[in-house]
C-alpha cells in the first residue's frame, strides 16, 4: 500500500482547507486571493492525475476514514467511474476559475470577491467529495455543501434577477434535499446501515420492499431536482442563464452531471444488486421523463432569444440523454452516459464561457446581436462552433462517441423508441446550434453592433475556452483511450 491511497481524501479536503483559509488571506492581501484559489485545485488535479492507472476498471480503491472498518466508520470508495468524474470536476473547475479571474470583477463587487472564491472552492471540493464517498449520509452532507454554495453563486451578482433566480432555485432545491434526507432515513430504518456497499447486500436480503421502493422514488426526486430532470427543471433556465458565466459553466457543466452521477450511484451501487425488480417501475418512469426532457429541452432551446438561456435549455435536453443511458441498464448505455458527462461538461462549459466572453467584451446577451461576430472575435466564435458541433454530435467530436454508445445501449435494451428520441434530440440540437453559428459566420452584422474595432477577450479568458473546445475534439478522436475501460467499469457496476 503506497501513499497514493491517501490521495482521494486529500483531493477532497485540500480545496476545503483552501476555502477555509482564503478569507484570512483576503483580509490581509486582497490581490492574492484569485491566484491563491488556483493552488488547492491544482494540487487536487495533480493528485487525481497521479491516481490514473492505480485504479483498475473493474475494481475500486477503498479508504477507511479513521481506520474504522467500513460499516462503523465512513468509507471513501473511488472506482474507475468515480475517478473519471473527479478528474472532470478538477479540470473544468480549474478552467472556469482561470476564466473567472478576469471576468468576475465585472459582475461581483469588490468586497464580495473573496466570498465568491471561497464558494467556488467549496463547490469544487463538495463535488469531489460527493462523487468519491461510499457512505450515503456523507453523500447528503456534501450535497448540502454544493447546494448551498451553488445557491449563493447564482445570487452573487446581487441584482434583481440574480437574487430572484437564486431564491427560486433554493425553493426547489431545499425541499429536494430534505427528501433525500428522508429517503436515507427510510433506508436506514429497514437496513440499519449507511455504507453503500453494505446497504446493497442488506437491501437484497430485506423483506421491506414497499419502504425500499419509496426510498428510491424519493432519491430520484431529490437528486432529480438537483440534476434538473424534466418535470423538475423549472429552476434551471433562470439560474443558469442569470448566474455569472463561469458559474453557469460550473453549474451546467458539472453540477447537474454530478447529481446525475449520484443517481447512478444510488441506482447501481445501492439498489443495483438484487433489487432490480424493486426499482424497475421507477426506472421505466425515469426513462419516460428523460425522453420528454430531451424533446422539451431541445424545442425550448430553439425558441430562445437569449444565448445563455438557449444553452441552459440545451442542458435540460442533455440531462435527458444522460438519464436515457442510465435507464437502459446496459454496459454500453452506462458507458455512453459517463462519456456524455465528459463531453457535455466540456462542451457546455465552453459554450457558457464563450457567452461570457461576448458579455464581457460587448455586453451582448441576445442571439441577434451576435450576427457577424466572426469578423471581430474569430477565436471565440470558432471555439463556440466546435463546442456546438459536439453538442449536436457530429463525428469528429466527443459528442458523437457518447451518442453512439447511448444509442447502442438503448438498442441492446430494446428501447427503440428512445433511439428515435435520441436521434431527434440531435436534430433539435442541430437546429438551435446552427442558428447561432449561421448568425455568427454568415450574417452581416447589425447596424452599429460590431462596427467599432473590438478586440478578443484577454488570453486568460481565451485559453480555457480553447482548451475546452480542443478537449471535445481530442476525446472524440482518441475515444479508444477511455471507452474500453469505461465499458469494463460499467459492466462491473451493473
Amino acid at each position, binding site marked *: 500500500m503506497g501513499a497514493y491511497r491517501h490521495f482521494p481524501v486529500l483531493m477532497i479536503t485540500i480545496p476545503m482547507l483552501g476555502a477555509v483559509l482564503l478569507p484570512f488571506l483576503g483580509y490581509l492581501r486582497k490581490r492574492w486571493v484569485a491566484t491563491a484559489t488556483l493552488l488547492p485545485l491544482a494540487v487536487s488535479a495533480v493528485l487525481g492525475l497521479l491516481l490514473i492507472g492505480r485504479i483498475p476498471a473493474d475494481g475500486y480503491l477503498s479508504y477507511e476514514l479513521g481506520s474504522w472498518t467500513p460499516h462503523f466508520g465512513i468509507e471513501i470508495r473511488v472506482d474507475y467511474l468515480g475517478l473519471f468524474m473527479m478528474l472532470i470536476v478538477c479540470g473544468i473547475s480549474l478552467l472556469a476559475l482561470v476564466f473567472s479571474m478576469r471576468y468576475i470583477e465585472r459582475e461581483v463587487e469588490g468586497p464580495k470577491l473573496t466570498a465568491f472564491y471561497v464558494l467556488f472552492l467549496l463547490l469544487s471540493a463538495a463535488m469531489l467529495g460527493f462523487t468519491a464517498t461510499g457512505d450515503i*449520509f456523507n453523500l447528503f*452532507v456534501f450535497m*448540502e455543501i454544493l447546494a*448551498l454554495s451553488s*445557491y*449563493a453563486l447564482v*445570487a452573487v451578482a*446581487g*441584482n*434583481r*434577477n440574480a*437574487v*430572484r433566480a*437564486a*431564491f427560486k432555485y*433554493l*425553493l426547489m432545491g*431545499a*425541499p429536494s*434535499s*430534505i427528501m433525500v*434526507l*428522508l429517503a436515507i*432515513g427510510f433506508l*436506514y*430504518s429497514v437496513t440499519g446501515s*449507511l455504507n453503500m456497499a453494505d446497504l446493497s447486500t442488506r437491501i437484497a436480503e430485506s423483506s421491506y420492499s414497499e419502504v425500499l421502493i419509496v426510498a428510491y422514488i424519493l432519491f430520484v426526486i431529490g437528486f432529480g431536482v438537483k440534476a434538473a430532470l424534466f418535470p423538475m427543471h423549472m429552476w434551471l433556465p433562470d439560474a443558469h442563464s442569470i448566474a455569472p458565466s463561469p458559474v453557469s459553466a460550473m453549474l451546467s457543466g458539472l453540477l447537474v452531471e454530478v447529481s446525475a452521477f449520484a443517481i447512478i450511484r444510488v441506482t447501481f451501487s445501492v439498489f443495483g444488486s438484487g433489487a432490480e425488480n424493486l426499482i424497475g417501475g421507477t426506472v421505466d418512469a425515469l426513462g419516460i421523463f428523460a425522453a420528454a426532457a430531451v424533446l422539451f429541452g431541445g424545442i425550448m432551446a430553439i425558441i430562445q*432569444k437569449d444565448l445563455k438561456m438557449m444553452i441552459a435549455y440545451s442542458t435540460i435536453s442533455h440531462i435527458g440523454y444522460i438519464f436515457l443511458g442510465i435507464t437502459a441498464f446496459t454496459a454500453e448505455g452506462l458507458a455512453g452516459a459517463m462519456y456524455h458527462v465528459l463531453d457535455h461538461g466540456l462542451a457546455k462549459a465552453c459554450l457558457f464561457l464563450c457567452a461570457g466572453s461576448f458579455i464581457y467584451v460587448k455586453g451582448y446577451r441576445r442571439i441577434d446581436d451576435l450576427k457577424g461576430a466572426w469578423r471581430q472575435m474569430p477565436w471565440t466564435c470558432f471555439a463556440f462552433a466546435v463546442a456546438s458541433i459536439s453538442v449536436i454530435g457530429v463525428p469528429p467530436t466527443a459528442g458523437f462517441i457518447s451518442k453512439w454508445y447511448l444509442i447502442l445501449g438503448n438498442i441492446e435494451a430494446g428501447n427503440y423508441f428512445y433511439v428515435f428520441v435520441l436521434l431527434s434530440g440531435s436534430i433539435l440540437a442541430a437546429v438551435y446550434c446552427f442558428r447561432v453559428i449561421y448568425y455568427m459566420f454568415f450574417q452581416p452584422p447589425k447596424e452599429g453592433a460590431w462596427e467599432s474595432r473590438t478586440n478578443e477577450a484577454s488570453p486568460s479568458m481565451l485559453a480555457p475556452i480553447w482548451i475546452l473546445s480542443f478537449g471535445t475534439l481530442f476525446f472524440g478522436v482518441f475515444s479508444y483511450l477511455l471507452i474500453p475501460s469505461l465499458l469494463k467499469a460499467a459492466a462491473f457496476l451493473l
Partner: protein
Amino acid sequence: MRLLHNYHYIGAVILFCIGLYTVIVRRNIIKKLIGLNIMETAVFFFYISLGYVDNGIAPIRVGGADPSKMVNPIPQALILTGIVVAVSVTALALSLVILLYRQFGTLDVDHLMRDEAEEAKEAGE
C-alpha cells in the same frame, strides 16, 4: 396494526405534508421558509423516533448503564448534522429574503413573479 404502533412516524408524515403544503401554496416567502423548517423538523422527528427502543435510556455510558437498553445513537448523531445543515440553509435563505425585500419592496411571491413576467415582456419588445 403496525400503523398504530408507529404513531410517531405518522406525526412526522403529517408534519412533512404540512411543511410541503406551506412551501408550495403560501405566497409570503417568509412563510415558505417556515414551511421548509417544518419539513426539516418532520424529518428530524422521524429520525429520532427511529432510534427509540422500548424503555430506552440515553446512550451515555455512565454509572453502569445497560447498553442493550440504550436508544440508537446513530440517528441522533446524524440529526445533529441535519440541524446544522438546516440552520445554514435558513441563514442563506433569510439573507436572500433581505436582498429580495430591499430590491422589490415586497415579500409576495406572486408580485415577484409578476414583475418578472413584465420585465420579460419589456425585454422582448
